């Protein structure tokens, strides 16, 4: 494999760049159809290497959430709300705004950056 091959791969870098543009990319298995919200090197259900990048819905349902009073060093002072959002058949962790509770519909509204890495921000739909 040459270094140039990396430009064709679906890696974290591709995922992060897409998120910054407002697109959520996941990995779908061509063999078994399972979808993950983050790129993998093999399918976590059937271990197939035949994976393709797919666009995930940007609207979903809060699966769980918490309001963190004491964030780690390097973040704004709390409280911040972090949640896991169900996007179709997969889920992604992100920041929540608007006080959404479990079961509420939320939509990708913004992106925050920490140490050069983006995180999705979901607002109440």
């Amino acid at each position: 494999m040459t270094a140039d091959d990396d430009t064709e791969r679906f890696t974290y870098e591709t995922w992060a760049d897409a998120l910054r543009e407002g697109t959520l990319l996941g990995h779908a298995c061509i063999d078994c159809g399972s979808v993950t919200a983050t790129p993998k090197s093999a399918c976590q259900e059937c271990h197939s290497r035949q994976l393709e990048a797919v666009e995930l819905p940007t609207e979903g349902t809060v699966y769980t959430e918490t309001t963190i009073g004491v964030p780690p060093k390097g973040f704004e002072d709390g409280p911040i709300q972090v949640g896991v959002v169900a996007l179709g058949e997969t889920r992604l962790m992100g920041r929540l705004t608007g006080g959404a509770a479990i079961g509420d519909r939320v939509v990708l509204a913004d992106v925050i950056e920490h140490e050069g890495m983006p995180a999705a921000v979901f607002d109440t739909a």
Partner: protein
Amino acid sequence: MARASIVGAGMTHFGVHGGVTLPELFADAALDAVDDSGVSLEELDAVYFGNTTGSVSENDSHLSSKVASQLGIAGIPCQRFEDACATSATACKHAVQAIESGRHDVVLVGGAERCTPASGLETPEMTKIFSSASHRQYEQPTGLTFPGLFALLTKRHMHEYGTTEEQLAEVAVKNHYHGSLNPRAHFGKETTVEEVLDSPVIADPFRLMDCCPFSDGASAVIVVSEDAAESYDAEPVDIAGVGHSSGRIPVAEQAALSATAAARRAATEAYEQSAVTPDDVDVVEVHDCFTGAEVLATEAIGLFEDGAGAEAAADGRTRIGGDVPVNPSGGLKAKGHPIGATGTAQLVELTEQLRGDAGRRQVEDATTGVAHNLGGEAATTVVSVVEART
């Protein structure tokens, strides 16, 4: 037939140890275990050592040979383990395998960690270092903390089963009571449901009093073959089963966040190896880094039906004197949580319980114990079944 046996157990007080180095701290626990066993330092065939944060927090790596050297030991294999908070349980699992295979006869296994401000880093820095166990790219940028991570799991449990903040507070009250009976506990004072619910919110539903402290401390056990165990001074405790499994990271991709699937797989494996069922268990040490984590753990290892763990705690069933005492040591909540020392500290407590040496916190007639030690987002879990010699 046991897979291996513990013949010596030792630990330091868990709390603040700013005045000693990490190797000095570990040596205190290791020598305590060595002296308890009657094994001489010359007899050790290997040292399996657990430490999680030292490489980052103290710029201190390659710790296995350093801690061995502190004990005057060189010339034998020494290995360092790091699996987040499950660090010394995985170290012990490997010691059991080495004994079982015949590769080694006598292994010193344990862990040490320095997490308090007295050891150099203030709480915000240490919180960041702890968060390194969450996924670097897909979780850390959200601002997730470890209280936050377990809050996500616990909020889901509350949503699915109606678990309440008051029930969670009862777990803290129970573990503080147990800790008040343990002279080595970080917190020796009892608390009340009202005090827990009045403490500041760290990550809802967890308040300060739902969270374990940052502690300094060390623990160690001496593991030998079942047959050799009788030849040492101390009363042996048999390791009948050790299950170890993993779960998906990022945690969002785990199937059911309240289930902690890795713990279920590890428990099933450990029970199968030991031919023990949850009904046989007399005393349990689980990884209660947060009150909600204890509830999830007691369900995952089969002590209670799914959704019934919090009510069982609130009803006193997990208190010393209840049907199945959980965390008689005080658990991580009250005994303290020096990360890499926690797994073997659970085994130290169970060794003392099964020998009948646990003093005021003794669980009556305890002959079978279970330890549940998890790491990261419950994505590493080791479950160990230990039995008294009858």
